[in-house]
């Protein structure tokens, strides 16, 4: 499998603090790769760097050989690298359907003015968006809630809606921000299912997560960060036995590590 996404020597400094320090790894096509690490390890900074929400101090992120870091979020999205957020980040006052329809922006062929004046391209776009949104909602098990106002959705579904919004952009790589955080056993199981189904759709998944057991279960490969540095990379089996990883997680209760 070729490398789809390359993280090369990525570093981010905030004042004197080095949040991400010279991190390099690659993500292969249709892989599920997880980034884990204790609190404050720099996971979410790394995540924002890859999705171009932050500008790296040095180093870069390449997608299909082209630099996508240090641009702007909408540029990275246009290239095909799209992130999700933790659960409250949705278009709160829109219906579930409108959330997903709105998110089809990158698939538009009509211009802003075209949409304003209702050109032929705009009309065919709108039709296509509606159909695609319905397909995505069905895919994620949200079809029954399509006309609900998004802020009224129960917690578990909010995260699915977040993924639905990302899917609407037709991404090649999807970045999931702690997709299992705060979930109970059943919810986690369903979320894992969704992540696998994303891969079946041909999407490469990069996720940042705290919950080790879920990550062990689903990932092809895992990258471990500690104090901004990458301390290990490998398959779940390799990571489980890596002494550096065990050391980094020492002091954390065994249960939450899931070793």
């Amino acid at each position, binding site marked *: 499998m070729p490398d789809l996404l390359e993280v090369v020597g990525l570093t981010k400094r905030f004042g004197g603090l080095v949040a991400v320090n010279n991190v390099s790894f690659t993500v292969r096509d249709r892989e599920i790769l997880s980034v884990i690490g204790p609190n404050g390890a720099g996971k979410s900074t790394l995540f924002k760097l890859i*999705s171009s*929400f932050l500008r790296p101090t040095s180093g870069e992120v390449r997608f299909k050989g082209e630099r996508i870091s240090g641009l*702007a*979020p*909408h540029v990275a*999205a*246009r290239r095909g690298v*799209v*992130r*999700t*957020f933790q659960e409250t*980040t*949705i*278009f*709160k*006052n*829109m219906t579930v359907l*409108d959330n997903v*329809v*709105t*998110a089809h*922006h*990158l698939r*538009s062929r009509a211009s*802003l*003015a075209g*949409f*304003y*004046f*209702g050109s032929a391209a*705009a009309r065919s*776009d*709108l039709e296509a968006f509606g159909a695609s949104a319905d397909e995505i909602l069905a895919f994620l098990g949200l079809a029954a809630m399509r006309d609900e*106002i998004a802020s009224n959705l129960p917690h578990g579904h909010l995260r699915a809606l977040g993924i639905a*919004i*990302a899917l*609407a*952009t037709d991404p090649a790589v999807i970045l999931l921000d702690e997709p299992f955080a705060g979930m109970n056993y059943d919810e986690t199981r369903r979320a894992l299912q969704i992540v696998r189904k994303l891969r079946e759709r041909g999407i490469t998944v990069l996720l940042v997560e705290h919950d080790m057991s879920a990550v062990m279960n689903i990932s092809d490969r895992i990258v471990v960060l500690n104090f901004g540095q990458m301390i290990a990379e490998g398959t779940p089996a390799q990571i489980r036995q890596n002494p550096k990883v065990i050391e980094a997680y020492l002091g954390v209760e065994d249960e939450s590590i899931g070793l």
Partner: protein
Amino acid sequence: MRTSQATTVRIIASALFLLALLVAVPLLIEATGRTDLYYTLTSVALLSIISAGVWITFYIGRINIGQGAYALMGGYVSAILVTSYGMSFWLTLPLAGLFCAAASVLIGLPILRLRGVYFAMVTLVLTEVARLLALALPVTNGASGIVSIPLPSGISFFGVTLVPDFATLANPRLAFYIVAVLLMALCFLSLYRLAHSRTGQLCQSLQQNEELASSIGVNIAYLRVIAYALSSFFGGVGGAMFAAIAQSIYPSSFTVADSVNFMLNCFLGGLGYVLGPMLGTFVLYFGWDLLFQTGEFQLLIFSTVLIVLMLALPNGLLSLAIPRKRSV
């Protein structure tokens, strides 16, 4: 199809409303002899256009208290072009709007990055900047302003008079009223289109969550500037019309208090409704006028009513009539 039926009803209702404004109102005014109402209603129409601009900035999630600056700018642009360059007023009207739109792009690029109260405060300051600039620049003639601007000239095409010369009219007030109503109709039509098109949906995505909007590929900086430019265009056109009617413009023609009022108009009508700014302007302006008889208690009663309204209907007057149609 039910939706097309609803659309038909809406079109007919709007046409009737416009017809009433253009025909029934003038007839009523002539019958009662209250010709002073022309000026009042013209002002309401123009102020609602300026307020509609503010509404657009609310639509992308920004609190705009700087609309007075663009109204002032539009007024000056038109006044200067008419008096110093002898241009026809009808040409200066769109030019004033475009000038304001262009200026707002330059101003908007840095300040639209600000959010919440920061944007609100900066725009408030902007109104003050506009006033000070008008006082300081040589072209605006300082505190004495630009006065005795000629009334709009006529427009004729191949000898056919499309718009008569206002100076020759027996009742230019009626003419101004009709122009203002037509402009208002045009303005709210374009606003309605915005709110009910995908372009509007994208604006709403900005209002609800800019990070998420940019993550789905929306160029938020670009969209914000476009919306702000449109908003300022309305401000400029409204300001230019005002200068033409008053035949004068001063640095104090639009002040911070006016900017605040434009914002109040939108709030009072309801931010979630296209017609909010129109209704809000009408109620505030007429309310203020009616209270004129109360003399020194005018401001006291006015502000008390405002506060009570705010407590009773925090989501605007229209939230009473249209419980929760399309929440914006």
